[in-house]
């Protein structure tokens, strides 16, 4: 199927043309609720990128070495979500030990990331599109960076708009969706440079 796509194409496409938020709508819950402040949003983006690379790599081997040989395709969701939950825990503990400064900054977001749809979505897309290991790794990295880019951009715009008068009722999440819509419109400009489906 898609086995011969250049991994670098996948990497750039998952940042720009197939952005997790702007064209696949994944990870919207935390995207809308934690985009009020640029600093926080950017930290969340970093943690998502980290967890995404880690879990995509891990889930790839779980899929190839456990799920396929044993014919456990129907348990795929359970295994993936458990791997994600477990690796978030491990990353949190390791970070606490090795990089305490970073842990103070990112620590509060890590538990939230377990239920971020973008993480599970990346693993599921990887399986559906039949990527090999290098492709999966770059796909995870690219998707994470794309998510980071989108949430930082939204947070920066919302911070700039802080004092602007927004119609009543559209304040908060409402305007966040309209901004995201315009951002998605802008990102359509990239389409055609790279294509993965």
């Amino acid at each position, binding site marked *: 199927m898609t086995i011969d796509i250049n991994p670098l194409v996948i990497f750039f496409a998952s940042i720009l043309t197939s952005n997790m938020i702007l064209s696949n709508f994944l990870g919207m819950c935390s995207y809308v609720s934690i985009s009020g402040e640029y600093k926080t949003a950017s930290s969340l983006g970093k943690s998502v990128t980290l967890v995404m690379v880690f879990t995509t790599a891990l889930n790839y081997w779980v899929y190839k070495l456990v799920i396929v040989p044993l014919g456990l395709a129907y348990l795929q969701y359970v295994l993936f979500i458990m791997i994600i939950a477990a690796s978030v825990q491990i990353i949190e503990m390791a970070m606490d030990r090795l990089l305490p400064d970073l842990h103070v900054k990112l620590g509060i977001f890590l538990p939230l990331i377990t239920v971020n*749809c973008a993480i599970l979505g990346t693993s599921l897309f990887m399986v559906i599109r039949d990527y090999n290991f290098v492709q999966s790794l770059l796909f995870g990295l690219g998707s994470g960076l794309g998510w980071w880019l989108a949430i930082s951009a939204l947070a920066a715009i919302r911070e700039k708009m802080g004092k602007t008068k927004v119609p009543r009722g559209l304040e908060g999440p409402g305007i966040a969706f309209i901004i995201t819509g315009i951002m998605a419109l802008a990102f359509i400009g990239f389409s055609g440079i790279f294509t993965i489906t």
Partner: protein
Amino acid sequence: MTEKINEVISRNVWKDNQVLRQILGICSSLAVTNLMINSLVMGVGLTFVTAFSSLTISLLRNAIPHRIRMIVQTLIIAAYVILVDIYLKANMVDISKALGPYVGLIITNCIIMGRAEAYAQKNPPLISMLDGFFAGIGYTVVLLIIALFRELLGFGTVFGFDVNFFEFETWTIMVMPPAAFFLIGTLIWVTSNIFDSGKDKNLK
């Protein structure tokens, strides 16, 4: 019973609609709304999962140790999602392909976890099941409204039937992602105007 059934219905479908008022479960609600039939299947699937996982979690609410409840809840939800996924793969092959990973992503849909944490954890089984069921119905209604606009303007069809009587030019933008963001933003605007203007009158 702690809450009357009609209160559960009006709270979940209208007053505290999960998508428009609580801003939960947005991921999947936007991705599948380019066609009405996809939205309907997704809504029914989610309603089934929410209702039964609320029932199960409520039945087990005294048996699940508090500290590990999140992972237990996730596993219960995942079990029901697998049932839905297998059913769709066996009986509705085309729709299952169109929905792709979004069926699996019901697991991380915040609505189900939200209902489990906020309601099923503390209430008896039957009413929890109804609460989950009507939260799912509220989600389905919003999905169908968004999908109605996107399919009608984007393809000129409703549920696949051609209703383009005036031969208007279909709007390609409605099929693409930005339109979903604009539509949900507008819907949130409309609903919060309805509710919040009522609140202001009460204050005065």
